[in-house]
């Protein structure tokens, strides 16, 4: 007599799938660093191709140049660091302060990322660069967006 084996249908339980996906979701939500807010300056960075990545994120300090969002401040282009507007004469002081936050051996390795709006005049950008030279922070990266 041939016995017919009743085959149980093999089904993968999908009950834990939502849990797995949620775990992934939380991972991405936590790991994705939210861009630091810039609420002082209007900014569209120019497009470029020859871009290189900066590996040492801890060495980066940012300077933003552009027209202020707040119209009451005026229509003149301003320099903004750490989300506050500063005068260019204060820039050297700021660079020195930032250097103090770095360990001794990395002080001269500091990288300044200049985020400037497309239509900022070169005069102002140069003034910033002159201040940087004075403060001996000569590694500069011009922040750009990739060309599509």
């Amino acid at each position, binding site marked *: 007599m041939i016995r017919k084996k009743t085959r149980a249908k093999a089904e993968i339980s*999908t009950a834990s799938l939502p849990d797995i*996906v949620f775990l992934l*979701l939380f991972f991405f939500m936590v790991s994705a660093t939210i861009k630091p807010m810039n609420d002082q300056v209007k900014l569209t960075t120019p497009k470029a191709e*020859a871009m290189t990545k900066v590996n040492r994120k801890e060495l980066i300090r940012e300077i933003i140049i552009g027209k202020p969002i707040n119209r009451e401040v005026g229509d003149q282009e301003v320099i903004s660091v750490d989300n506050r507007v500063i005068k260019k004469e204060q820039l050297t002081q700021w660079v020195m302060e930032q250097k103090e936050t770095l360990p001794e051996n990395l002080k001269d390795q500091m990288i300044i990322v200049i985020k400037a709006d497309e239509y900022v005049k070169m005069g102002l950008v140069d003034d910033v660069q002159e201040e940087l*030279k004075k403060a*001996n922070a000569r*590694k500069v990266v011009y922040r750009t967006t990739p060309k599509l």
Partner: protein
Amino acid sequence: MKLKKREVQEINTGSMADIAFLLLIFFLVSTTILQEKGVSLKLPPEPEDQEIAEIHDRNLYKILVNSSNQYLIEDQRRDNLTGLREEVKAFVMNNSIDPALSVSPDKATISIKTSRGTDYKYFIAVLDEVKEAYYEIYGARVGMSSEDYRALDLDKPTERDLISRGKDGIPMNISIAQPEKTL
């Protein structure tokens, strides 16, 4: 009397996965991982401790941008930057062949000068073209595209070796002159 049989109400969790997936994909797409990318440059030191280097005219490739964002490249008026990359490459890699171009790659210097009224965008456009020309030279020497060359990681020994092989003997001499008020 009829006893109503109560069924246990269960919420269908079958679509939970779909909802979660949707959220996951939304976050994946919307969060750009903060990447610090840009065009890098090393500023020259302060004038007092700067040695004044005499550069022979043939070793200097002059690019000027005036306050109306017009280009003057090697004393010729230009409206756009088409072809600049090829010209820079030819200039750098001349190796004394053409008497008007550079003597050797290590002596070749690209000078970019802007006016105080130039828009930042146009300066970046020039700098980008010049740097890309150099990266194309570097990349070609190690058999890579400039894009792959730029993506090389200094922290990895094998890739660092490739970077130095590409650069060897061809320094990126880009001189940023201080903008003039009147130009």
